[in-house]
C-alpha cells in the first residue's frame, strides 16, 4: 500500500531492501522504517500486549509511545517506527518484555 501519485510529494524510487519478518521473506525500500516497511507489506500487528496478549500495532510513529517495540536482529525493545530498515534485517514479534541479551 504505497502512495503512487501525490499532488505535492514526489516519492523517489529507492533501492529495494529484503528483510525477514517472523522468518518470512519481505521487501521494503531504502528510507523505510521497519514499521513503515511492514505496514506497506500489509503487516499491522507488530506484537502482543504484556498481560492480556492483545494484538499491538504502532500508535504515534515518532518513537514516543512504545506500542511498536519488536525484536530486531536478536535485540529486544527496538522502536520500529523510528528505526530505519536495513538489508537482511531479521524482525520478530517479541515475547513479553523481551530479554537483555
Amino acid at each position, binding site marked *: 500500500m504505497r*502512495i*503512487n501519485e501525490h499532488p505535492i510529494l514526489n516519492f523517489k524510487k529507492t533501492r529495494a531492501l529484503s528483510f525477514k519478518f517472523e522468518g518470512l521473506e519481505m521487501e521494503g525500500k531504502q528510507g523505510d522504517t521497519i514499521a513503515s516497511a511492514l505496514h506497506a507489506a500489509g503487516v499491522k500487528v507488530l506484537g502482543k500486549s504484556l498481560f492480556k496478549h492483545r*494484538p499491538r500495532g504502532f500508535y504515534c510513529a515518532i518513537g514516543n509511545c512504545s506500542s511498536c517495540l519488536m525484536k530486531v536482529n536478536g535485540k529486544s525493545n527496538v522502536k520500529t517506527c523510528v528505526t530505519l530498515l536495513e538489508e537482511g534485517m531479521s524482525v520478530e514479534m517479541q515475547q513479553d518484555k523481551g530479554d537483555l541479551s
Partner: protein
Amino acid sequence: MKETEIAIVGGGPAGLCAAYTAAASGAQVTLIERNPLMGGQLNKQTHMFFGSEKQYASTRGMDITNILLKQLEPYEGQVQMINNTTVVGLYEDKVLSLLENEERYYKLKPKTTIVATGAFEKFLAFPNNDLPGIYGAGAVQTLMNVYGVKPGNKVLMVGAGNIGLIVSYQLIQSGVEVVAIVDAASKIGGYLVHASKIRRLGIPILTNHSVKEAQGEGVLEKVVISEVDQSFKPIAGTEKEFEADVMCISVGLSPLNELLSMAGCMMKYVPSLSGFVPIRSSEYETSVKNLFVAGDSCGIEEASSAMVEGHLAGLYASASIGKKHEQFVVLEKEYKKQLHDLRSGPEGEGIRRGLTAVERRSHND
C-alpha cells in the same frame, strides 16, 4: 565530560530557532534531536502555514525545516547538531544524560539548557481502542507524508480540529477514502477554510458524535459511533456503524514534560495549555535556575508560536550566561510583538488565559 554553553533538547521548530538566536548571540550551542532528521513534526506537514510572513505563512511546513537549517549555516562552528540521540536524564548539577542510537550513554555538561521537546498525541477511551489500525492522526501523517505508505483503505477521523481536518485532506491527497469525521463538540474546532475543503468533497463532519466502540478480529474492521449529549454521554439508539480499517485519533496534544518534571520544575495543570506545564518567568526560565523552555513543551500552540518562543528563549538563555545579543533590545521587542499578534483575537483567548496562570514577570520587566 563533554561541555557546552547551551544545550537545546529537541530539534523541532522551537529548538532550531532557539539555536539560531543563541548562536547569533555568540554562544556555543549543542542541539540534540532523538530522530534521524532535524525539524521535528515540520517534516510531515505538506500544507502551507497560516499567519504572518514572519513565521513563513504560505510556505509548506516541510520546507520550513530547510529555511531554519539554512539560517544556522553561518554559525557552523558554534552549533553542534546531534541526531539519533535521546536526552534521558536532566540532573540537579545541570548534567544531561544522552543515549546515542539506543546504545551508547554519555554525559553533557552545559551552562544552561533549553527544553524544546514538543508534544505527543492524546488518546481516547473506548472499548477496543488498542486494536491495530487505530493510530494517532499525526502518526498517519508521518506514515504517508514522510514514508509514502498508505495507512489503509477507509479511514474514520476522530476530531474536527485543525489536525483532524488537515490530515483528512492529506489522506484524500494520498488516495485514501475518509468515511467521516466525528467530533464530540457541538462545533468544528478547526479553521473554516479547512472544514470547507472537506465538506466540498462530500465527507460528512459529524459534530456531537463520539466513538462508542471499535470492532475487529485482531485488526480494526468497524467503528460504532453515537450522538452525545451536552455532557458528552452517548445517547442510546443513535448508533451508526462505519466499515473502516483505520481510525485516526486527533483529540489534541499534551506537552512532553518528563525532563522538566525530572529536573524538579514547578509544574501546573493548565487545561487551556493542554496539560502539565512549567511555571516560568516572562524570560522563559523555569523555577529551576538555568533551565529554559520553549514551544509546545510549555503549552500547546502552533508551530508558528513555537518558533518565536524558540527565538526568545535562545536570546534569554544566552544573556543569562553573559552572551547578550548585540541587538537584544530590538529583537526582544520584535519577537514579543510577533507572539502578541499570533495570540490576539478570539482563537488566542485560551492561550492568553493559560499564560497568565504560568508566566511570572521577572524583575527585569
